[in-house]
């Protein structure tokens, strides 16, 4: 005799309960596990730096002690914050334009085979081109100013964004596409409901790489295109070198590094983790 409907109910519920075991770790412990190694690495770095100073390998005005540099940073907080903000907002603007342009190019390449075979390999070619090589042309086109920088930032970041979308779409499991089609999704609805969300984790690493390229191109630009009204970190860096303010030079370098780490771990890192967790690509909940 087959089991009755009610006992089927309880049997399934029992099975579900058996198969689901909690595996969440405490939030505090997770944060500690993420932060402590970074703190340890930073401490180690400063210790090595101090050791280098103590070894008297170079005179103190060339390699100042980390304490001197941190003190200098404490004395110029508004300059550094303002310059960081100027550079960050320039970077963000360029990055957003790159995401739009790279996004359109990426989607076109991923969904139209003719476009793919025509320009697909060129995108990777563009990606490997050092962005600093674009500056002479950019300056000829746009003159020494914001527009030249924006141009190079976009050219530097867009190929990574496009390539991220192309490889993301390539990696969508055929089964999911089949499932989408069998439910009646086609063309745009298939792209929007199935293909793009399925490729998001890979697309996101393309965005992350795009940001890295944008940031590099931007700093190169701020150093080369000095005639800017708004002084960003690159301009500050170049000026401190020119004015022989080497402690200031180090101070800006440390700031640059800090801004980079913050954007990467707080901006991209958290989003990346959230995406990977939602897509079931990491263990735990």
């Amino acid at each position, binding site marked *: 005799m087959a089991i009755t409907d009610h006992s089927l109910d309880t049997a399934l519920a029992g099975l579900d309960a058996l198969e689901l075991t909690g595996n969440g770790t405490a939030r505090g412990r997770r944060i500690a596990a993420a932060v402590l190694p970074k703190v340890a690495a930073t401490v180690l770095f400063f210790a090595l730096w101090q050791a280098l100073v103590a070894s008297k390998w170079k005179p103190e005005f060339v390699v100042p002690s980390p304490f001197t540099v941190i003190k200098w940073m404490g004395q110029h907080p508004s300059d550094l914050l303002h310059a960081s903000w100027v550079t960050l907002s320039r970077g963000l603007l360029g990055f957003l334009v790159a995401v739009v342009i790279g996004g359109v190019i990426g989607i076109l390449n991923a969904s139209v085979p003719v476009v793919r075979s025509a320009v697909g390999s060129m995108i990777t070619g563009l990606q490997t081109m050092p962005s600093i090589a674009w500056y002479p042309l950019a300056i000829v086109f746009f003159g020494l100013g914001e527009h030249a920088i924006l141009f190079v930032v976009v050219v530097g970041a867009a190929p990574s964004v496009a390539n991220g979308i192309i490889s993301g779409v390539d990696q969508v499991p055929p089964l999911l596409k089949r499932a989408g089609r069998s439910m009646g999704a086609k063309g745009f609805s298939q792209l929007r409901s199935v293909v793009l969300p*399925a490729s998001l984790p890979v697309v996101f690493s393309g965005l992350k790489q795009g940001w890295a390229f944008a940031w590099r191109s931007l700093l190169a630009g701020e150093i080369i295109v000095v005639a800017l009204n708004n002084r960003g970190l690159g301009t500050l860096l170049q000026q401190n070198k020119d004015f022989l303010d080497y402690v200031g030079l180090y101070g800006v370098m440390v700031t640059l590094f800090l801004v980079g780490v913050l954007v990467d771990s707080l901006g991209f890192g958290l989003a990346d983790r959230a995406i990977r967790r939602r897509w079931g690509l990491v263990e735990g909940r």
Partner: protein
Amino acid sequence: MGVHEPLQPLVESAVSLQQVTKVFGAGQSLVVALEGIDLEVPTGRFTCLVGASGCGKSTLLSLVAGLEKPSAGSVAVVGRTALMFQEAALFGWLTLQKNVELAIKLRGESNRQERKAEAMELLELVRLADFAHHQPHEVSGGMRQRAALARSLAQKPDVLLMDEPFGALDAITRDLLHEELESIWRAQAMTVLFVTHNVREAVRLGDEVIVLSSRPGRVVERISVDVERPRRIESAAVAGVAATIADRLREEVRRHGDH
């Protein structure tokens, strides 16, 4: 809701294949997946397709689902189809509820509240209401298949096509899902075309079992299963019919060993 009568006379076909041939590739790499298939799937009945590897079972379902076109012959389907796979093929970035909602949306339901309510009803039907807000990777394989079943039902299919849906599950879970599928099929008066390589499963579920030959796939036998429902996969009656079909399949496989 009318009680399903397994032995009612055959009225019409929900799916009808006539002289269907499907060929993949060309030249040296040409593969004939299906050749001259004639197949009638009676409306409202549970029909199982069994065959050894390479009999083109999945290809056949793709043709019926309209995902592929036959190289020759004709495929006729009355009403809408939904296709369920061996792996759940749920969208991992959506909760179980949103997965079901998406199918309802793609079916053409534009009212968001309606979609939500219907998705919850379907999840209740497969006893997953408590897990509506879980992601697919947070639940077990059996639960994923139940969610996939709910998603298929969300397409309001007249014909439910199932491609070894329980092949990757353990025996206990599979038994329970057989019960569940059977009761849903009875309640919804759907036509089911169920593909499996598991002969006992076919006999446990099917009103009729169709045996396919391998490479190329052809219909070699149709066996009507006259075992009273409810059935158990362990019962002697099921095992008896299964043995006959297994012998027939073995014959098919041996035929390939000869050359």
